[in-house]
């Protein structure tokens, strides 16, 4: 049986809708993961133990279990105990928090590796601890963290495929719908793969742009 892509255009609407959902999930989850990452990093580095340890435990659980399991838990589990979330909401929360933890690790490393002389320079002028973090440490950590965090966001985009398992009609789920009607898995999976790849290219181009923008002039 040869490949016959002529069936794909008939399902363009389905695929486009899938792309839109994939983009929407990626965008919202990415925003959650960046802000969540900063919040978790600052909490783990500087907060009182009363806040620090719950966050650390939370991070430990999220890093130590599969994302798919977390999505099932958020969607099916919480639904059973009376907190029903829509598949989309469960999906963005799951993806967003999962990648918050990874982003937090990156941000912490970046902040710790800002030379201690920077802190001393700022504190010797009379800047407080918070002023130093805000004006001196964080801006430098952000510059360091953008390339690896960009990679995380690309992985997040690819992992958005997992939310098909809880019924969001993103690209994979949309492809499966089309396959169910046409019995042409290869054509639609390849089409989906091409779409992911193109989104990936755009994201990388965007990242390069951001990197160039925040790079200190040499």
């Amino acid at each position: 049986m040869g490949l016959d892509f002529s069936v794909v255009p008939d399902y363009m609407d389905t695929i486009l809708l899938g792309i839109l959902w994939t983009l929407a999930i990626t965008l919202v989850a990415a925003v959650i993961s960046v802000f969540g990452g900063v919040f978790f990093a600052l909490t783990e580095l500087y907060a009182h133990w009363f806040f620090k340890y719950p966050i650390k435990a939370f991070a430990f659980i999220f890093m130590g279990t599969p994302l798919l399991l977390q999505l099932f838990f958020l969607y099916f589990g919480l639904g059973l105990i009376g907190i029903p979330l829509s598949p989309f909401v469960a999906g963005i929360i799951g993806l967003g928090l999962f990648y918050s933890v990874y982003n937090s690790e990156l941000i912490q490393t970046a902040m710790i590796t800002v030379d201690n002389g920077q802190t001393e320079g700022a504190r010797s002028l009379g800047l407080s601890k918070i002023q130093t973090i805000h004006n001196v440490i964080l801006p430098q950590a952000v510059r360091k963290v953008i390339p690896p965090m960009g990679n995380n966001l690309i992985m997040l985009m690819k992992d958005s495929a997992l939310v098909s398992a809880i019924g969001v009609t993103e690209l994979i789920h949309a492809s499966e719908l089309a396959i169910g009607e046409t019995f042409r898995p290869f054509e639609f999976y390849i089409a989906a793969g091409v779409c992911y790849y193109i989104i990936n290219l755009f994201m990388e181009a965007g990242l390069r742009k951001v990197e160039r923008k925040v790079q200190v002039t040499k």
Partner: protein
Amino acid sequence: MSKKEAFIRIRHAKKHYGDLEVLKDISLDVEKGQIVAIIGPSGSGKSTFLRAINNLDPLTDGEIWLEDMQVNKTLTPKKYEKHIDQVRQNIGMVFQHFNLFPHLTVSENIMLAPKMLKGTSQSEAYKLAEIELEKVGLIDKIDYYPSQLSGGQKQRVAIARALAMKPKVMLFDEATSALDPELVDEVNIVMKQLAKEHMTMIIVTHEMAFAADVCDKVLFMDKGVVVEQGPPSIIFNSPKEERTKSFLAKHLNDAPGNGNNNA
């Protein structure tokens, strides 16, 4: 003898890490406008001592006073943080590795503290940056980033940044040690200029020539104690202590103009 208290008073400064004593009961008076050099072998505790003066390296015991402010006052941690931030606004510090903020331009480096701490407006702060850069001869670099400057220029910006807070005393922690030899002079010239303007300065240095030339008082430290102190003419030309003599014998090559060295 005047009974008036000295500008900076350090009393029985002690510091230890576990069993290791790095500062063993050091006292020092510095008068307003006085320039004090601290010399000594590495590991003698001279940088630790200097860094205790603005509490970057807190003492274990002893007192440090700047006029009527006690630097290392005993307070609850929260109150002490506020107190030390206030105190540090009066104490400028220049580091061996400059510690300029690489993500900010030269002017932004200088403006940051006055804007954050004194509520100076953007335009006033920029004027201030211009004035301080004029002093260190770098007005043309005002919009550069630190990475575009040479080591000597970076250090001069660091001095301008400290001066912009109008400190009462300037601490120099081996300010020229990380510089290429040909860049040392430009920093020394700026420091001499400050000396002329009667800035109170405490300088940790390896440059005996500079210490001999500029300072009013020299402290020789070794193994956490002040072995000998006095005016540079005495310390460099007729030291009494054996340890001072042997240290100077090794280092005087770069101190021209003193009687012991005719090379």
